[in-house]
């Protein structure tokens, strides 16, 4: 207990936990809009494109000053988004190629700048490498203020333009007919994604930041039925993934932070895809199974009923092997389920061996109903 308390009051651990919370909130909230607008991979391009900005910020500031670095990252991120926009609107290249071009060329420029900085022999350049895969332990209290301020700006904009963002996300045509500046709002959402990417750079790194934009939102989508709920849950998922990954990496030294955070987020996605109520894959498998059982039951009931009416004998004992042949597969399991529900009754038909089945009163009514026949008494 004392150990846990000491652990939680540790300076680095506190920083890491706060940082993860900030990162999770902003990337969770803005990721929702990216995922819903099918711009998931834009986040990938913007985060890779942050690398040259990080280097430029470092070169201009002359030291590892976080505000300068993040401003640079935001700038090249926006530039990359602009390149994608121009390539898709002014050439015949498709979106995927435009994203790929922007991502790889900007990243390459970042690599070039990184090696240039290493060549200048600046003593404080060692810190830049951590932006590739993220390093939670390198976060200072002052960094948290910068991250927090950026995140607050982003969240404030989302809150102020909530209605506009919502409408443009779900029905841009309708938003346009209401006279909303749709293009400008879409641009704003893209810039906000760049903002979210920038906040996470230090913890998750440029290579994996895209996953932090996508995964929490996908997980939240499984549980939520409204945009508000989805945004809240996505932020929560981001915080949980960020904090658990970051804490793990500060416990086990030598493990990169970014990958751990991404794997925590992936785990949340898998659990959500499988087990979320309503949309969970597990439940829909169960539902389909049940429906299939139900259908089989009704088919077998109808067969017994048809046999009975063909023989003008309401309690005609149908032979199970004949039912098997009729349906082309074993009906034993279906019949015992129907028996359990009191719809059929086991009987014998001497001198034939083997099980026989007849409909109960209730089974007859059900069979008629599913065959669409009206019961004789009401005819």
């Amino acid at each position, binding site marked *: 207990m004392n150990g846990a308390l000491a652990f939680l009051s540790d300076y680095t651990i506190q920083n890491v936990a706060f940082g993860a919370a900030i990162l999770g909130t902003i990337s969770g909230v803005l990721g929702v809009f990216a995922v819903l607008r099918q711009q*998931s991979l834009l986040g990938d391009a913007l985060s890779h494109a942050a690398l040259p900005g990080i280097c430029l910020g470092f070169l201009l500031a002359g030291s590892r000053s976080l505000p300068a670095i993040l401003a640079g990252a935001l700038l090249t991120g926006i530039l990359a988004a602009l390149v994608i926009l121009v390539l898709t609107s002014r050439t015949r*290249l498709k979106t995927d190629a435009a994203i*790929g071009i922007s991502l*790889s060329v900007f990243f390459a420029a970042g690599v*070039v700048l990184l090696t240039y900085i290493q*060549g200048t022999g600046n003593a404080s350049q060692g810190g830049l490498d951590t932006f590739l895969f993220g390093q939670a332990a390198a976060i200072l209290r002052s960094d948290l203020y910068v991250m927090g301020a950026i995140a607050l700006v982003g969240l404030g904009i989302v809150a102020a333009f909530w209605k506009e963002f919502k409408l443009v996300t779900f029905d841009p045509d309708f938003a346009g007919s209401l006279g909303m500046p749709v293009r400008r709002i879409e641009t704003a959402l893209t810039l906000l994604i760049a903002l979210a990417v920038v906040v996470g750079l230090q913890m998750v790194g440029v290579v994996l930041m895209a996953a932090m934009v996508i*995964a929490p939102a*996908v997980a939240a989508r499984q549980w939520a039925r409204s945009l508000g709920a989805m945004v809240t849950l996505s932020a929560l998922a981001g915080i949980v993934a960020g904090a658990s990954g970051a804490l793990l990496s500060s416990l086990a030294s030598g493990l990169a932070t970014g990958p751990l955070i991404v794997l925590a987020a992936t785990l949340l996605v898998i659990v959500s895809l499988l087990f979320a109520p309503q949309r969970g894959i597990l439940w829909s498998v169960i539902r389909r199974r049940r429906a299939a059982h139900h259908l089989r039951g009704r088919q077998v009931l109808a067969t017994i009923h048809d046999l009975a009416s063909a023989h003008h004998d309401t309690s005609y004992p149908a032979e199970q092997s004949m039912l098997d042949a009729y349906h082309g597969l074993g009906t034993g399991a279906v019949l015992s389920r129907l028996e359990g529900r009191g719809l059929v009754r086991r009987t014998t038909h001497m001198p034939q061996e083997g099980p026989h089945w007849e409909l109960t009163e209730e089974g007859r009514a059900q069979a008629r109903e599913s065959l669409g026949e009206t019961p004789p008494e009401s005819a």
Partner: protein
Amino acid sequence: MLAAALENIPLMIVATGALVGIAAALPGTFLVLRGSSLLSDAISHSIVLGIVLVWMMSGAQSGPLQLIGAAVTGLATVFLTELVAGTGRVKNDAAIGLVFPALFSIGVLLLNVYARDVHIDQHTVLLGEIGFVWLDTVALGAYEVPRSLLSMGAMCAINLVFVVLLFKELKLATFDRALAAALGFMPGLLFYALLALTSATAVAAFDAVGAVLFIAFVIVPPSAAYLLTDRLSLMLLLSAAIATLSSIAGYVVAVLFDVSIGGMMAVMTGLFLLLAFLFGPRYGIIAQALRRRRAATVTPA
């Protein structure tokens, strides 16, 4: 003379870069035309996991086993992506963005834990070391040939044979998938073969340019060529030419400023794309503007 060429370090580096570019542009052309080029992004990241797993199981850091492992990993990435998208709960783009970061993360963590003493570290994973390809050589008869040059040459030849032999089928499957399917060309299988070759090429190029820069070689030269021509055969040739020129120009500039050679080569592909974007004879921005102006002066008359 051959021995002298093999001793020539700049030539070896440029040749390796050009071979990476040509080998990547061959499948890249079809991926770009099909609108699936971001799968190369996913594949080049997730083969890191494949490389680490094959290394852990066999100890091989390169060679045929690694190429096969990469092909399997690449196909597994695409398969997983389609599986996630196939649930109907996640859109295709988000599925790509979920699968490859997860696989890449596992690969990087395994590297952190097990591979402290191998040459594959986090940096090589991302950036490669094309400047050092001449250090790692294998004896081939009387000659010492850089290993990367050899493996890239082999990959280039394999891709070239694939594209030349199946040119008609690939063309049809790319431009009219339905007709290709109707004629029995199995466009789905062709596409998977293309992705398997992309993965194998990514691994062969891994030592030289790393995971991320490889994406530039797959996507950018074919995209630039696409802005210059309408003919598929010409597009393939132009892609190869742009890749080769990027390799030469990238090397020269990188040495001049003493920066990453692989990175500069990738930046150069971007420069050629910019040139094609501006000056392309038909689809370039300037040609478009001229056409518009001509149309504007003609219409009133």
